[in-house]
């Protein structure tokens, strides 16, 4: 088991966000985490990543296939990009920070896959929202992490890039990574999921194999909102 | 300034300072007790409703 979370509960100041959350992340499995906006999906993901200490409960990381501490790749709403560095410098910084040996051709290959190759030497400050998100994807997938925690990675991507994203996620799963994916397009992405965790009423209303998850019963399924309104609200949806 | 005036000023400074501080503490205490009273009233109302 790569990751084990036991009876997590969390407050944001006086406000309770969720309680009694138990979750296991086996290797080579894709878990879709869904729920209404503001249900606390992003907060739960940050707790699993170890960024936030839960008010109560515990998160333990197990071992990866090589018996070491699993490497965590986290993709949040923010892009982790330094505007004053070029795309290549950004990638080089994050991989060397993680002590992950990467050759020149790997950088070229990943930039090619996310269609940013022509902008490798460009400063990231001029990037559009979609390009920044694709660079963020390149960063996460370049790490070849054992645990992938993706928070609405599809935001700002056009159709073609979304297909690239899906291919990368499935490829990572087949290589044995444990993935938790918060998607804003549940109907579409349910097909690829091995298991589903549905956050509702401050609890995990459903947590089990994707086959058993009946989308229709869920009242509070979020309709995929048009892209602008979320941006107008300024990032952090929940 | 004969020597005893020095002691008087020093004494005034100390006791005025301590007194001022204690006064602010008292004011904060009354603000807190108002908050406690308000909270208990809320709790009683809730108990009455149930």
């Amino acid at each position, binding site marked *: 088991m790569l990751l084990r979370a036991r009876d997590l509960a969390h*407050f944001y*100041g*006086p*406000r*309770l966000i969720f309680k009694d959350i138990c979750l296991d992340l086996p290797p080579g499995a894709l878990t879709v985490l869904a729920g209404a906006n503001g249900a606390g999906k992003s907060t739960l993901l940050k707790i699993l990543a170890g960024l936030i200490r839960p008010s109560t409960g515990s998160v333990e990381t197990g071992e990866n296939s090589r018996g070491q501490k699993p490497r965590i790749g986290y993709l949040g709403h923010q892009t982790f990009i330094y505007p004053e560095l070029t795309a290549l410098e950004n990638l080089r910084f994050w991989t060397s920070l993680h002590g992950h040996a990467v050759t020149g051709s790997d950088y070229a290959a990943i930039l090619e896959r996310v269609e940013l190759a022509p902008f490798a030497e460009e400063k990231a400050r001029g990037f559009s929202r979609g390009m920044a998100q694709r660079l963020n994807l390149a960063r996460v997938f370049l790490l070849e992490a054992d645990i992938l925690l993706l928070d609405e990675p599809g935001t700002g991507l056009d159709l073609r890039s979304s297909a690239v994203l899906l291919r990368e996620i499935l490829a990572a799963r087949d290589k044995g990574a444990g993935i938790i994916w918060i998607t804003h397009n549940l109907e579409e992405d349910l097909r690829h999921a091995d298991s589903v965790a549905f956050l509702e009423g*401050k609890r995990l209303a459903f947590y089990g194999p994707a086959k058993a998850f009946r989308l229709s019963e869920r009242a509070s399924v979020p309709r995929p909102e048009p892209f602008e309104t979320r941006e107008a609200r300024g990032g952090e949806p929940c | 300034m004969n*020597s*005893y005036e*020095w*002691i008087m*000023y*020093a*004494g005034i*400074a*100390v006791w005025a*300072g*301590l007194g001022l*501080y*204690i006064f602010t*503490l008292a004011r*904060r*205490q009354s603000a*807190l007790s108002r*908050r*406690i009273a308000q*909270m208990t009233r*809320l709790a009683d109302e809730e108990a009455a409703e149930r």
Partner: protein
Amino acid sequence: MRNFLEKAPCAAPWLALAGGLALAACQWLIFVYAPVESTMGPPQKIFYLHLPLAWWGLISFFVVFLSGIAYIYSRKPVWDALSGAAAEVGLVLAVLAVLTGSIWARHSWGLWWTWDARLTTALVMCFVYAGYLIVRGLDMQPGRKALVCAVVGIVAFLDVPLVFLSARLWSYIHPPSISLEPEMKLTVAACTGAFALLWAGLTLFRFKLALDAQRLDQSAMERLMRRG
């Protein structure tokens, strides 16, 4: 240790009463019992107020230091409340110590401020802990603010001996070491003891305020959890 700490504040009123009586007795000691110091004359009697103030101010900052470490170790809010209370009382005492010190300096050396090591250290401590209280006033997440305050409290106290050493090395003026006659020593001890009661009463009372405020915020949170 912790539940003893939470029950301690109810001793505050008794301590305050005992402190008041003790201080009244001290006034008699200072002005009647203690002999007038030969070289500096009566103003030397300010010393009987100045020393306890400085001494108990320093001990308050030591309490802030210890409770800061305790908070970082246990993350229990009671330690944060204690360090907040001790810092505030410590700052009041330190400011008064600097005030009386400079009045005494004005009399004995003719100028309001001298680079005397003890005075400089007290003044630097006032600046640092005023900064500490300003940090405590910022509106941050309660957990984060307590952590930041704990760290500032620890780092500030670590700096005190260094400030004292460097100030002493810096200043050429070495204060005339006045020889204390036995009666004077008794008076100083009595005053320090009396101030101990006053300090303990004040700190515990301020601690009670901080604990009450915390409990109120806690119950507000619990009410939200039940209804949320």
